[in-house]
């Protein structure tokens, strides 16, 4: 007997035994079932993993919220302060730019023309027909504006701005009135109305443009102006619609 013969005999016996034991048809069917079941298990495991991962991410983001980037059409809150007078907070719509001058004037400009100016401690520039008001209150200032003969005003209306008493009047320059002065922030000639401390050029009205002025009475006795205007191609309703979100969001800090 040799290894070769033992091996041949053992291999024959093994092949015969296996042939008897194995049912190929049943084996094929079983193999397909196992394969299908295994794919099902893979899918179930992958789904469970995805659900667990999703829940983990959801839980994480719930407890660790990320500061979201500002949405394009959502206004940005900016805090502008008047160190010598009244700090205020207002929304600044996207695209609007801000100019601050000597802590007494803030101008918010939109890219389409409308603007909003907030200024304080303004001195009326009297003319022969319109002498300066005798009392320095918001009501008298509003009355003085409405009485200016160079302007076409609406009726002065008492209102509230950010909870403070205010007087509102819409104005535009009367046709034919000469505009010869140079006003702050505009290239066209204007009719000067106010001078603000520390600012070289006066503030006034440009021919062809219309605006609304809120004269606000602060509790410390000072008077604050909120003026909405636009370029000559902006109509008043358009200007008012543009500045309304800012007006609505205005809130003033301590007013003394």
């Amino acid at each position, binding site marked *: *007997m040799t290894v070769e013969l033992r091996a041949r005999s*053992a291999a024959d016996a*093994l092949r015969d*035994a296996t042939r008897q034991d194995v049912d190929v048809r049943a*084996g094929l069917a079983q193999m397909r079932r196992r394969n299908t079941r295994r794919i099902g298990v893979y899918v179930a495991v992958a789904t469970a993993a995805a659900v667990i991962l999703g829940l983990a991410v959801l839980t994480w983001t719930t407890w660790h919220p990320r500061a979201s980037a500002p949405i394009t059409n959502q206004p940005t809150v900016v805090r502008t302060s008047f160190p010598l007078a009244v700090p205020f907070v207002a929304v600044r719509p996207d695209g609007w730019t801000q100019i601050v001058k000597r802590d007494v004037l803030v101008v918010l400009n939109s890219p389409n023309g409308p603007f909003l100016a907030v200024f304080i401690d303004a001195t009326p520039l009297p003319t022969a027909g319109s002498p300066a008001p005798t009392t320095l209150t918001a009501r008298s200032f509003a009355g003085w504006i409405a009485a200016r003969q160079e302007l076409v005003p609406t009726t002065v209306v008492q209102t509230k701005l950010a909870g403070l008493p205010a007087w509102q009047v819409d104005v535009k320059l009367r046709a034919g009135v000469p505009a010869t002065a140079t006003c702050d922030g505009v290239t066209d000639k204007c009719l000067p109305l106010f001078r603000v401390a520390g600012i070289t050029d006066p503030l006034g009205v440009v021919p062809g443009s219309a605006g609304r002025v809120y004269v606000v009475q602060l509790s410390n006795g000072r008077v604050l102006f909120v003026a909405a205007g636009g370029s000559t191609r902006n109509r008043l309703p358009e200007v008012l619609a543009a500045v309304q979100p800012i007006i609505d969001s205005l809130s003033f800090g301590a007013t003394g």
Partner: protein
Amino acid sequence: MSVTEPLSGETSTWEDPPSRAQARRLRTAQSFEVFYTSEFPSLVALARALTGSAAAEDIAQEAMIATYRRWREIEQYEQPAAWVRRVCANLSTSLIRRRAAEARALLRAGGLRHVQTDLPREDEEFWVEVRRLPRRQAQSLSLHYIYDMQVSDIALTLGCSASSVKAHLVRGRAALSVRLGVAEEDRP
């Protein structure tokens, strides 16, 4: 206006011809079935030679599942059988995989009557000694005797050189000769 009736009311029994993809799937399934039928019994024998356990059929099935999943690629090979035999040989000699297959076989044993025909004592003793050999020697000898494979085919199946296979066969036979107490070759 008249309507032409179909002759003798016959209706067509022709089915739509299968699409190319369906035809390909059908061909693939058929070719695998043929392959499985011809290869599976000897694959179980190979697994049994290398494991000696009731898990042999399970290991052969695992090798077949692996082949089934890649059948479209494997059937293009020159010798698809070499691929599945190599997988089976490796599964059989991998301790961890063999234990996993045994565990699966045990789990299934509850519901199935697993019959494994006993081998004659001498033949069983031979395979026990084969399993005690180093892995490559055991694989080479099993492939050689179960499939009656030549050295070059074993080399192709195991993915090694023909000279290595020769060496494995010579060393394996020598070890078996000593352990079984038989001559290595016929004496003149």
